[in-house]
């Protein structure tokens, strides 16, 4: 941010109480989309905070949380960044969730008002780091200037500590609140504020507890399901169980007679092959309560036309994947000459891995409240993509973007499911039909049957080794239904870009590397699932490296460290770049191994496995210890290490490691979505059995690398290495190689 354009991006104004409110927006026009990541200033209107920093004359310090909180900790960590540079005591800060802020420039382009507010791709902290520090530091600078003018001294002669301004020479002191009103009237400083050096941080880098802790444990925190608008009605939707199927017959007479039922509203499905608005055709029952809506739904008599995917099954899709691999796929990376390397190999190895469709299954089923009025709309939603919600309402209603208010609650989990706003589209359509605020509630069955599932995929890996045991060639073939299949502006030959990241290791670690992709057809809706393609690719690649090490009779850790080599920056053009440093990956592998006692003997039936992966700028590794006996698997211990650059809130970096361990284990153990006769087979937690506490390791230990790098996100890096570390441990314990997820009942030992 240069001095020249600085005034455009920092905005200070008075709060209703006469205090200082300060906002900041990113330099340049950053299109507001998620997350691929957007925004309007606003005057501080109503009870909601439109500014990043607010200092009231009574001394209250209110800091806005720009991104949405789904358990990843950003409602704590982002305000911490502002508070530290502002130099206030963390316990004196009140954090408020900011509503969506967008603005329109003179050419009609939309951008974020302050900073990006989407939550996805592990970007909230890394993208917020610089602008949020500048926002805090600028507010402090204005307060210093106001105090200096009041006392007739230079701002440079003043210092601050925890919300108090000191003038050492005269012994004068004053609270921020005393100068908030005067600060508003000051011109913004021409130059960017001086930021703290790392050793001056008081809040950043120190473990802090979750900001809404007390509200959550006492049942007071607001989630999407708790949101309400005055005069709202309740809706529940019966959706077509066939992908791209349509409504053939509707008899709603019985439903309309039930007590509490107000209306029945058919919802047209998405156009086959086109980007999704709603996820499926459906019939909404609108009632005076959620329960009445659910009863009305049961009384509907419906017939569906199953549409183009009526005969799809998981078995048929898997067969097609194998058939496709009989031919060469789309070559998306071809370094060196893999065929020659394989021809000349002293030894080679081939293995196939399968990763199934998976559902996000956040604990809070989809829900939201939408009121479409003649002159605008109100949306309250648990969403990772508030700007996506705004665009969707605009698209369906034609209302001006600036007249659509989007407020975000805490999310009862996200995991990528809430990057899509199909449920906001549904509530919008129902509100348009009934002309009232509509509270839409999905059931668990709705949520599991109608998701944007993580793509399944068949991976075939083949590698060549020379007579000294060095890897010389590597071919990775992937057949999968791409998550990009229905996106606007993605050509058929770019489907692979969502599923393979060419700059992932082992590229540039050996001379001959080839990636082939087979874009499969499936009617199953797909989307982003925590760490998207990294989960599957890490499973395949880190399993295969383990297999290669064992084939060579080498220690898997030593084999991988040798492959990774020294610390150096390699180009990384996909999300998480611009560089990948194999030395940092080696660093987390070594740290996890050392803390876990890698190499120390274990009793029979027990085994240790290791895996590491680079995801979206962060490096994570685990050593997993298991016991297998009589077909039963017990995860005894997990030791993890992460290099996420500077850990803004070490407490929640650790929490995300714990989360990745859990999610990794849970998904690897028993979770898969299957299709039969065109319908999803899973519909509640009895057949989509998330791990329970009894499945969780008793010993969990995580370590953060003390890193000089700026912070990267931690929502996704912790999950990818867990599944291969687990299956590598099973191999170490039993000699049985698990090449297909979930592990389920495959264990024979």
């Amino acid at each position, binding site marked *: 941010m240069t001095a020249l354009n600085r005034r455009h991006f920092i905005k200070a104004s008075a709060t209703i109480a006469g205090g200082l409110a300060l906002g900041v927006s990113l330099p340049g026009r950053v299109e507001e989309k998620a997350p691929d990541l957007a925004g309007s200033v606003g005057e501080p209107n109503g009870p909601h905070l439109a500014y990043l920093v607010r200092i009231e004359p009574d001394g209250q310090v209110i800091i806005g949380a720009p991104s949405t909180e789904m358990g990843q900790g950003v409602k704590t960590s982002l305000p911490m960044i502002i508070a530290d540079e502002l130099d206030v005591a963390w*316990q004196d800060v009140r954090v408020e969730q900011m509503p969506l802020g967008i603005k329109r420039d003179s050419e009609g382009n939309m951008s974020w008002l302050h900073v990006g507010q989407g939550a996805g791709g592990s970007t909230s902290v890394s993208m917020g780091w610089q602008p949020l520090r500048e926002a805090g530091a600028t507010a402090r600078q204005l307060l210093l200037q106001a105090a200096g003018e009041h006392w007739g001294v230079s701002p440079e002669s003043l210092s601050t500590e925890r919300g108090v301004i000191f003038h050492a020479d005269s012994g004068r002191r004053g609270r921020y609140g005393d100068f908030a009103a005067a600060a508003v009237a000051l011109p913004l400083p021409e130059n960017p504020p001086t930021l703290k050096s790392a050793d001056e941080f008081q809040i950043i880098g120190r473990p802090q507890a979750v900001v809404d802790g007390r509200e959550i444990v006492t049942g007071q925190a607001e989630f999407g399901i708790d949101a309400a608008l005055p005069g709202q009605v309740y809706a529940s939707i019966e959706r077509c169980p066939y992908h791209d199927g349509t409504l053939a017959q509707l008899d709603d007479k019985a439903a309309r007679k039930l007590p509490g039922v107000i209306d029945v509203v058919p919802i047209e499905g998405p156009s086959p092959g086109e980007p999704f608005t709603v996820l499926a055709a459906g019939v909404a029952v609108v009632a005076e309560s959620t*329960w009445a809506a659910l009863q009305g739904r049961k009384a509907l008599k419906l017939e569906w036309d199953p549409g183009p995917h009526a005969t799809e099954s998981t078995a048929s899709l898997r067969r097609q994947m194998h058939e496709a691999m009989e031919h060469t796929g789309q070559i998306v990376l071809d370094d060196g000459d893999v065929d020659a390397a394989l021809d000349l190999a002293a030894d080679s190895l081939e293995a196939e891995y399968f990763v199934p469709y998976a559902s996000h299954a956040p604990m809070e089923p989809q829900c939201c409240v939408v009121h479409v009025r003649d002159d605008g709309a109100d949306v309250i939603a648990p969403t990772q993509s508030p700007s996506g919600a705004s665009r969707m309402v605009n698209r369906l209603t034609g209302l001006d973007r600036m007249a659509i208010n989007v407020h975000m609650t805490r999310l009862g989990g996200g995991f990528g499911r809430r990057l899509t706003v199909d449920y906001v589209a549904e509530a919008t359509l129902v509100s348009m039909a009934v002309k009232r605020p509509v509270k839409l509630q999905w059931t668990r069955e709705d949520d599991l049957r109608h998701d944007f599932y993580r793509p399944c995929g068949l991976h075939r890996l083949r590698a060549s080794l020379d007579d000294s045991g060095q890897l010389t060639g590597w071919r990775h073939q992937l057949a999968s239904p791409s998550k990009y299949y229905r996106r606007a502006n993605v050509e058929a030959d770019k489907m692979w870009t969502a599923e393979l990241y060419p700059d992932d290791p082992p590229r540039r670690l050996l001379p001959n590397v080839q990636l082939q992709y087979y874009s499969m057809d499936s009617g199953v809706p797909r989307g982003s699932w925590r760490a998207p393609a990294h989960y599957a690719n890490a499973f395949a690649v880190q399993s295969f490296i383990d297999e290669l090490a064992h084939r060579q009779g080498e220690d898997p850790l030593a084999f991988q460290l040798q492959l990774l080599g020294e610390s150096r920056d390699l180009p990384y053009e996909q999300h998480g770049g611009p560089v990948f440093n194999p030395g940092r990956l080696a660093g987390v592998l070594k740290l996890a191994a050392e803390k876990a006692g890698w190499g120390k003997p274990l009793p029979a039936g027990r085994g240790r496995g290791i895996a590491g992966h680079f995801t979206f700028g962060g490096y994570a590794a685990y050593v997993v210890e298991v016991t297998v006996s009589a077909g039963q698997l017990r995860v005894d211990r997990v030791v993890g290490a992460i290099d996420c650059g500077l850990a803004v809130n070490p407490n929640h970096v650790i929490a995300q490691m714990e989360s*990745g361990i859990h999610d990794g284990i849970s998904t690897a153990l028993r979770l898969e979505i299957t299709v039969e006769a065109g319908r999803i087979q899973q519909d509640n937690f009895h057949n989509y059995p998330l791990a329970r506490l009894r499945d969780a390791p008793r010993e969990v230990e995580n370590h953060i690398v003390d890193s000089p790098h700026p912070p990267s996100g931690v929502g996704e890096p912790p999950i990818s290495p867990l599944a291969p570390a687990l299956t590598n441990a099973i191999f170490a314990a039993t000699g049985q190689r698990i090449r297909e997820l979930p592990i389920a009942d495959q264990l024979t030992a």
Partner: protein
Amino acid sequence: MATFDLNGEAFEFDGADNTPLLWVLREAAGLQGTKFGCGAGHCGACAVHVDGRARRACVTPVGAIAGRKITTIEGLGGDELHPVQQAWLEEDVVQCGYCQAGQIMTAADWLQRVPDPSDEDIEKYQANLCRCGTYARVRKAIKRAAEISRNGAVAFVEPVAGEVQS
């Protein structure tokens, strides 16, 4: 129509007796701390106490609890924090937080009968689902809650850990 004691006060619901207690609490009584997760008794996000014992409100028809004493997360600690809530804060358990009211209500019930829980006890009795992965901290918080309960009331420790480990 059903009348019952709700967090110490009489509450009357005038709808159908087969309405699940969950929706009565959330929409008729306006107590939204009790969450909807599965509607089938699998996940425990809706756990409340019926005469002191944890029950899953999503599969409990309101007619079945007429005349009984219902405690929800809002009423668990009265004006104070219940030891389980206090321990939850000390261990900074929550991530998204959605399942935690149910986790707390479940633990607060069985800990009365198992005052010094082992790992096996925790694995046996704490069967609520968490999707985020708070189990490691739930385990610690249950042990801590037991300790607080055994020792009687102790001063609340601000949950800002000086040292991070898990």
